[in-house]
């Protein structure tokens, strides 16, 4: 079978990136050190650990949770997570018979400042095509099987609003610190393709 899900010729694309950077730098349009900072930012600084802190605080702090419902963008920004691809945040809560799932069927919109850069599967046709039409089947491929009566609510981020799922808090975590709770919050649980980790027994 010929399922070309990756670039046919890796050396070709590497050469093109290199050529374009050389040209843009020579033209005085791009500072190569700026690229280094961008890479360092998303490789090392911004990532799902940001969102996990938001979730842990929402679990433990009712005033913070209320503020998130009122103005998620400002409330998350106060934690230091704001800017590119998180300019307009909405937070959606799992629980009460509802499971939330986020997708961008039209491209790859994702809350960078809160979750970092999206994984490859999030940007790929299988997820983007099926998350809206057969979300339960997709969830099953992630190992998530929900009760039949749970409503699956899919958020297709077609505009500049970015979504953060607050997963259900695992049982047996009463009194845990925010840091300890944050360690249970996976990236996938904040997209909706996963659940928060269970507390170790």
């Amino acid at each position, binding site marked *: 079978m010929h*399922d070309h899900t990756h670039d046919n010729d890796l050396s070709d694309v590497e050469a093109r990136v290199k050529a*374009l950077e050389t*040209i843009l730098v020579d033209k005085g*349009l791009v500072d190569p050190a700026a690229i280094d900072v*961008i*890479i360092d930012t*998303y490789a090392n600084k911004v990532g799902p650990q940001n969102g996990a802190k938001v979730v842990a605080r929402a679990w433990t702090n009712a005033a913070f949770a209320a503020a998130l419902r009122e103005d998620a963008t400002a409330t998350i920004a106060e934690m230091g997570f704001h800017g590119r691809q998180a300019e307009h945040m909405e937070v959606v809560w799992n629980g009460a018979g509802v499971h939330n799932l986020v997708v961008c069927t039209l491209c790859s919109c994702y809350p960078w400042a809160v979750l970092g850069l999206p994984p490859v599967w999030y940007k790929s*046709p299988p997820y983007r095509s099926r998350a809206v039409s057969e979300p339960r089947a997709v969830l099953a491929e992630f190992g998530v099987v929900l009760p039949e009566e749970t409503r699956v609510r*899919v958020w*297709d981020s077609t505009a500049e609003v970015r979504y953060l799922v607050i997963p259900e808090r695992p049982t047996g975590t009463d009194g845990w610190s925010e840091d300890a709770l944050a360690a249970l919050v996976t990236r996938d649980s904040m997209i909706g393709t996963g659940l928060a980790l269970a507390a170790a027994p």
Partner: protein
Amino acid sequence: MNGPHDLGGRDGFGPVRPEMDEPVFHAPWEGRALGLTLCAGALGHWTLDESRHARESLPPAFYLSASYYNIWLTALETLLETHGEVSAAERAQGAAQMPGHRQERKLAAQDVLGVLAQGGPVNRPPVAAARFQVGDQVRMRRGRQPGHTRLPAYAMDRVGEVCGVRGCHVFPDTNAQAAGEGPAWLYAVRFSGEELWGDGAEPGSEVILDAFEPYMTHA
């Protein structure tokens, strides 16, 4: 446009394949391609919407087979050529043949964190009262539209319920084509699975999308 990017509800792409412990970048060139895209975007030749339109206008067979950073890179080549900054001849040679036009807009390394932290909010002062409110039944626009739009094909002509009013945002359909920001009210609209997929819907599923006022009429 109903291009290769408009994937919601299309069949045939097979299972989702999550990667365990996926790295942020799978190769150094991916990071460079991301950085180049952000730095070139900072020159201000094009809007975010225009860059999305450049990506979705790539040949479908390429769009559906290339990695996403290759899609970005290829669209970036197109944008730089369209806006007169880097010609195809320069790309082929791998060398600049003339200086850049917007050198004064070059993003300096020391400004990167500030620019990223600031982002580019797209909310705008309302130009008119919102025509819809929470609870309204609305039908989405249908029909062919050659340019950029953020109304997915699967929602065209379908009826949903307004469940949120997001404010007035830059309208991508005009902003992608240098026809101006034309701010429009943005709503969250909820559709039942049955409305979208008929008998083939998974029971108990629904989709909420963000829809601009020009996409909608009272149902």
